[in-house]
């Protein structure tokens, strides 16, 4: 109940943010641009649109999550609105979860908007609504939830700009974790290998949420992989939220 009130308040505040619409604007341009690319391609034109479209959804969704998420808690502290809010009978975890769900809700709405444009574009090519795209989008959404929790974690103790840089690094490394894996195989045993291995264990593999290729090429995907990816996303998000809460719980609002 209290979490819901804070979540809706956060949603209201977030959708007023101009940055959101700027990113949305670029996302739409990118999705539209895929049409141009498709014209230049020989062969399966729709495939290009799907590929570029889904990548745009993931990238711009992540940008929204990071740029708005990192400002969320910081703004409340900076403008001191958090003083009266936390003096009400709420627990600090309720505040943090309210912020989290508010942003997740915002991202859900934005993703929905982008998806509608994306599906419409495909429709003009194939005259079919390609519902299987929604599976890929659903996993993008799970990824965005995880990134939101990371952005929230950073915003509990650092400024929006620093948090944004950290969160974006998280996103990039998360998508290139497979590179780390090949590195581990090639590297000689020793200190370097241990560090690489530790990093690999700790950092998430965001490619787990990437079903682009399979969906676009209509390849079969075993259900166990779906299940694993979903659980992976949920537990990693919970894990990050727990750390954020542990930091937030003991924080002094000087």
């Amino acid at each position, binding site marked *: *109940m*209290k979490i819901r*009130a*804070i979540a809706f*308040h956060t949603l*209201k*505040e977030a959708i*007023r943010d101009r940055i959101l619409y700027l990113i949305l604007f670029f996302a739409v341009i990118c999705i539209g641009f895929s049409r141009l690319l498709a014209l230049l391609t020989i062969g399966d034109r729709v495939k290009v649109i799907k590929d570029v479209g889904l990548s745009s959804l993931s990238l711009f969704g992540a940008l929204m999550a990071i740029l708005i998420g990192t400002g969320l808690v910081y703004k409340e502290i900076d*403008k*001191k*609105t*958090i*003083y*009266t*809010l*936390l*003096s*009400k*009978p*709420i*627990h600090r975890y309720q505040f943090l979860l309210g912020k989290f769900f508010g942003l997740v809700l915002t991202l859900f709405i934005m993703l929905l908007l982008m998806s509608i444009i994306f599906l419409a574009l495909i429709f003009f090519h194939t005259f079919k609504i390609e519902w299987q795209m929604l599976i890929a989008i659903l996993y993008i959404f799970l990824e965005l939830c995880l990134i939101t929790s990371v952005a929230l974690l950073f915003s509990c103790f650092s400024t929006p700009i620093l948090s944004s840089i950290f969160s974006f690094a998280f996103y990039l490394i998360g998508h290139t974790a497979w590179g780390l894996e090949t590195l581990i195989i090639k590297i000689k045993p020793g200190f370097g290998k241990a560090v690489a291995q530790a990093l690999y264990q700790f950092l998430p593999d965001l490619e787990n949420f990437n079903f682009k290729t399979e969906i676009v090429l209509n390849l079969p995907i075993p259900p166990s992989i779906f299940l694993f990816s979903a659980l992976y996303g949920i537990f990693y998000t919970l894990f990050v939220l727990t750390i954020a809460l542990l930091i937030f719980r*003991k924080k*002094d*609002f*000087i």
Partner: protein
Amino acid sequence: MAIALNIEDLHKTFSLGFIPKKTKILKGISLSVNQGEIFGYLGPNGAGKTTTIKCILGLIFPDKGKIELFGHSYLSLQAKAQTGFLPENPYFYDHLTASEFLYFYSQLFLIKKKEREEKIKHLLQIVGLEPSADLQLRKFSRGMLQRIGMAQSLLNDPSLVLLDEPLGGLDPIGRKEIRDIIVKLKEEGKTVFLSSHILQDIEMICDRVAIIVNGEIVNQGTLKDLISEKILFTEIDLSGVEEKELKNLGESVTKKAGRILLRVSKEENVEKVLELVQSKKGKVHSLIPRTETLEDLFVGMVKQK
């Protein structure tokens, strides 16, 4: 009498700066506020008033010490449900209108949906913001923000209200209005804890005060106990008498257009001055006995430190 707020031996250290350096902000604060009274918390800038209030609200965690609100631990939701808080220099979500803002906060209390609208209307009326109910908070003046802050602190009909400089930034009329609200809260049986610099206001409404200087309570008690009612001196504004005739009765403070402002320290001299003026067919324009004020006490305390 039941105790609303009890603080014992509160210590707080801040570690500030790029290379953290520890500064003691609160050095063992102890005070207790009785139910139903207006308690004034006085101190110069930077003494630690706001820090104490933030500790009570659980916004910062003390290093050491005990805080109890109505016998509950201060961090419990029961304690918070009975508390209202107005921060110093209040600032709120500026994209919301006054009533939207109060509605948001009312959701954080367990106020029934039906009662919310009614309650918000009532509070806006109390603080005199009814005409601005649908105005965005970004368009509010400093005084209006103070009032909406007051309104939000009363949403839950609290038993204890913590007000951090409730009269700061207000014009004389605004000050009087807020002061009236505070007195009314007391009449309703609520306990008010307020910090302020404006000594006359505190003097006018507070039952008891504590004075904090440099993170330590230097004095605490009822105003009567702290301030002696002994007359310090009497100021007499008179004319028609030569200055030198008054020489050993008192010292003249100013002399303008034949009028002399005389400060008389000994009480028996007041009579003598009056007799003298009468015999010389002079005139007494005013006669004001000055007792000790909170300001004298306050300045004395701060200087001692």
